């Protein structure tokens, strides 16, 4: 299992190599990449903050749970921090498993759980300002009174 929070560029081949297994019939790779727009605004770049030690711990908990739920052979979950330009990879997930269906489901479930509870934050920087984004799926927003969502 490969779990990492890093300011270094994320390389797809590292994640794939980490999950390769003779028992795997499928390896599914997901890249979360920086988009140049959000909610109608032009995004210049993103700045990611993280609580690295806890983020890695929570990512590992999620990966262990995914392995059990979807009978995955192995998982790699990497998140980048710092300034990321448009098109760069912020989140890299690879899962290996016996058959393809579980590799898609397991990968999808992993991304959703990461967005709920891993302590990582993105700031959008626009031409005319900036703002920290509060993920609509995050537990913090989900637990808030309905009027604040």
């Amino acid at each position: 299992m490969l779990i990492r929070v890093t300011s270094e560029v994320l390389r797809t081949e590292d994640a794939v190599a980490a999950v390769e297994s003779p028992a795997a019939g499928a390896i599914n790779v997901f890249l979360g990449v920086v988009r140049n727009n959000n909610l109608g605004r032009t995004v210049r770049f993103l700045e990611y903050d993280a609580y690295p030690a806890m983020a890695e711990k929570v990512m590992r908990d999620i990966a262990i749970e995914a392995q059990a739920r979807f009978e995955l052979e192995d998982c790699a979950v990497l998140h980048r921090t710092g300034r990321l330009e448009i098109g760069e990879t912020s989140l890299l997930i690879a899962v290996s498993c016996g058959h393809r269906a579980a590799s898609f489901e397991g990968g999808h479930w992993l991304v959703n759980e990461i967005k709920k509870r891993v302590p990582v934050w993105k700031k959008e920087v626009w031409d005319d300002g900036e703002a920290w984004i509060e993920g609509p799926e995050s537990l913090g927003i989900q637990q808030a009174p309905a009027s604040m969502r």
Partner: protein
Amino acid sequence: MQVTVLLFASVAERVGARKLELQLEPGDSVATVRDRLVERFPQLRECIPTLLYALDENYVKDSSPVSDGATLALIPPVSGG
């Protein structure tokens, strides 16, 4: 008796610091430490409804007791991915 408080993202910007050391009082919980922080930094008040808390890297309820030497992280709504 001391607690280290870690601040991130929007919360760190509001306070102008990423780390604070606070004196603990007997019987302190996450909520009482948080309330003392809000007294000192009123600009935190509007963050409270969506804030989560972690003690030594584990999510906890705000009723959890805080022990000497603990690290308390204030976790605003996450937005990784």
